[in-house]
């Protein structure tokens, strides 16, 4: 081949000689060297400033768990982003008014400087903080904190933190992780849900093997996945999501008997009301990835469900601020960060912006 012989002559490649009508090899090498130096400088300067930005400004745990406070993970840039903060649980009148002005949320009087967590929940003098360590392979921890937000126990985990819950008494803890490998399986994912009894120290690393009764029959399948556990006041009964064969179910579980049974289909991330009579949950109302969920409340006595006033798709395990009000995170304006919204649990009213730049709401009662 005429063409290739000319360009590919051994040891005399085109790059070695003078390009056709272009600058000499020396000039091109020099230009590339200069460009490399400039680009390397940009990269290094940016990285160093990013590393400096990440250094913690104040020591963690500047405050403890106090009653009447709403704790959350702050996602607001420059305002303790990535760390736990808190505001008074009952919003002051002017604060609530300012909060409803969605376009320009007024600065809330948040106290920042709590521990750094991906997910956070607290109740009854115990806090659960899911934390991540970057690197190869990425690692994560479940950190158990006491009433003054001091570390009591740390459990190494794999995957991406997803849900965290503490029982009302502070005794039972549960968390859910996405398995990291599942970035390969594009539209499905698998989860690992753990349960920790802080009184006995007993840890169930993966609750997948709990004997499950589905629609009245003992059920075995390798693809069962649990997530979003919520505990009842007795620290024994719990509710969770189980998914298998592409369907999701609400399960009711019993820790002492170590058994679970499904109650209802198409129900994810249950959250039990403080009086233990109702479950808030997300229900899939649309197939696909576009706005698939709506927030519902299920009355456990009548087993009737009703949607709440929130029309948007909520992908969160809702938290009860009290027996009447739900709090949940939604993506922020323009998709940046997330905000915490509240809505009445009985289906009345309208959603209200509670904390701009926050996620993982939890009220300590």
């Amino acid at each position, binding site marked *: *081949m*005429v*063409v*290739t*012989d*000319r*360009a*590919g002559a*051994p*040891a*005399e*490649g*085109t*790059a*070695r000689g003078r*390009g*056709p009508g272009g600058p000499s090899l020396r000039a*091109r090498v020099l230009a*590339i060297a200069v460009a*490399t130096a400039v*680009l*390397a400088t940009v*990269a290094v300067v*940016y*990285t160093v400033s*990013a*590393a400096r*930005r*990440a*250094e913690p400004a104040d020591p963690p745990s500047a405050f403890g768990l106090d009653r009447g406070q709403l704790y959350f993970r702050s996602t607001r840039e420059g305002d303790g982003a990535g760390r736990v903060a808190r505001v008074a649980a009952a919003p002051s009148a002017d604060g609530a008014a300012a909060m409803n002005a969605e376009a320009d949320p007024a600065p809330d009087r948040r106290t920042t400087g709590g521990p750094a967590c991906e997910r956070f929940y607290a109740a009854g003098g115990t806090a659960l903080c899911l934390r991540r360590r*970057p*690197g*190869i*392979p*990425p*690692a994560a921890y479940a950190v158990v904190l006491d009433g003054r937000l001091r570390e009591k126990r740390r459990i190494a985990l*794999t*995957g*991406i*933190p997803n849900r965290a819950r503490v029982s009302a008494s502070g005794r039972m803890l549960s968390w859910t992780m*996405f*398995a*990291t*490998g599942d*970035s*390969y*399986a*594009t*539209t*499905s*994912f698998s989860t690992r849900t753990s349960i920790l009894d802080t009184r006995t120290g007993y840890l169930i690393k993966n609750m997948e093997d709990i004997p499950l009764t589905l629609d009245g029959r003992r059920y075995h399948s390798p693809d069962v996945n649990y997530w979003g556990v919520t505990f009842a006041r007795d620290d024994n009964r719990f509710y969770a999501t189980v998914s298998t064969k592409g369907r999701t179910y609400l399960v009711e579980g019993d820790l002492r008997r170590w058994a679970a049974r499904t109650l209802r289909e198409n129900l994810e991330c249950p959250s039990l009301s403080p009086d233990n009579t109702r479950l808030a949950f997300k229900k899939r109302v649309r197939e*696909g*990835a576009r706005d698939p969920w709506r927030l519902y409340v299920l009355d456990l006595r009548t087993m009737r469900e009703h949607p709440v006033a929130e029309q948007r798709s909520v992908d969160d395990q809702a938290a009860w601020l009290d027996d009447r009000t739900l709090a949940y*995170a939604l*993506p922020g304006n*323009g*998709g*940046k*960060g997330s905000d915490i919204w509240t809505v009445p649990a009985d289906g009345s009213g309208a959603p209200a912006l509670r904390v701009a730049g926050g*996620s993982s709401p939890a009220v300590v009662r």
Partner: protein
Amino acid sequence: MYLATTGAAAATSQLTRGRVAGPVLALGTVSLVTDISSEMVTAVLPLYFVLQLGLSPLQFGFLDGLYNGVTALVRLLGGHAADRGGRHKLVAGTGYALSALSRLGLLLAGGGTAGIGAALAADRIGKGVRTAPRDALISLSSPPDELGRAFGVHRAMDTAGALLGPLAAFALLWATADAYDAVFVVSFCVGLLGVLLLVAFVPGRGALGPAAVPAGPRVPLRARITEPLRDAAFRRIMLAAALLGAATIGDSFVYLLLQRQLDFAVRWFPLLPLGTAAVYLLLAVPAGRLGDRIGRRVPFLLGHAALLAAYVLLLTVGDGIVLLAGVLGLVGVFYAATDGVLMALAGPALPAARRASGMALLQTGQALSRLLAAAGFGAAWTLWGSGPALVAAVIVLAAALAGAAALLPRTTERRSSWS
């Protein structure tokens, strides 16, 4: 880079003589640098989406899958544009530049889903556009009997970049405590350097000679894109590649099966592709040279036989270490013996002026048939479970291998009309 491991001393001394053409080394360097840039981002994107932006894995999967279909069409257009007037360098450079700029898009998008979607689309389009012109440039810059080695060198450099990228990204995340923006900025700088290297050191159309610049009347676009199919030898290669592609279950499934059987901690999962890539890196050049010596259809078929052996290992071997090393090694052999080798096989069957279009057609056909195979295997897994699905995969691949052996032309390398 030298064929020291085969033990064929005589052959080795003959094969190691001479070097790879300058443009191939230049393109290899561009690919190495670009792959560092793109794999940096690829490695952190799932984490970025799910953790930093709070997208659900479902949404991420949706965004990710959305653009994979688009690239097939874009690739054909890229190949066609490169062949019109022999503008391989310009078209490939545009693709590289688009991908580099998409990092700035990710940076500027902040958390906006629309902006991220646009940036991802730009990256995929850039990748689709550049691949065929680049492979055409490699094949146009090398003598036909050294194509295997040229592609081997290029793929080895490419894979080296792909190995370095995730390491660089995770090192950056570690050093900056999860500053994803720093990953995007560094990735942009590295990507831009790749574009500059291409501009400075890869020859333009003047160096490719008149044969690469088509003359004569203009033909309608659709006719031009499918024109290479009129050649019987190329048609057979295309059919064989598509047939084998349709019998390939996809790496993610192989890794998932491996993880299931060995039951190691899921956190090591991201390291599995690195094992495969390392073998690919080591064997790409020897496999290419072997193809130059004994014909490219043999390594291409042997590569698929290695994949078949990997499936059989997954079915039969219980021993952990043997299974892990065997499967990763065999999948690495599969890539080393097929990826660049297929381009070396097809190159001589295509006229210089239609080379980019032909390669685009071939790559698109292979990609689409693999997509089909992955979907089919996924369905079989769901219906029958992993074991029976794997047995089916073994049978289908063995049949496809026999079919491809019958289809592949024995001599494409020395066709007098092109050389």
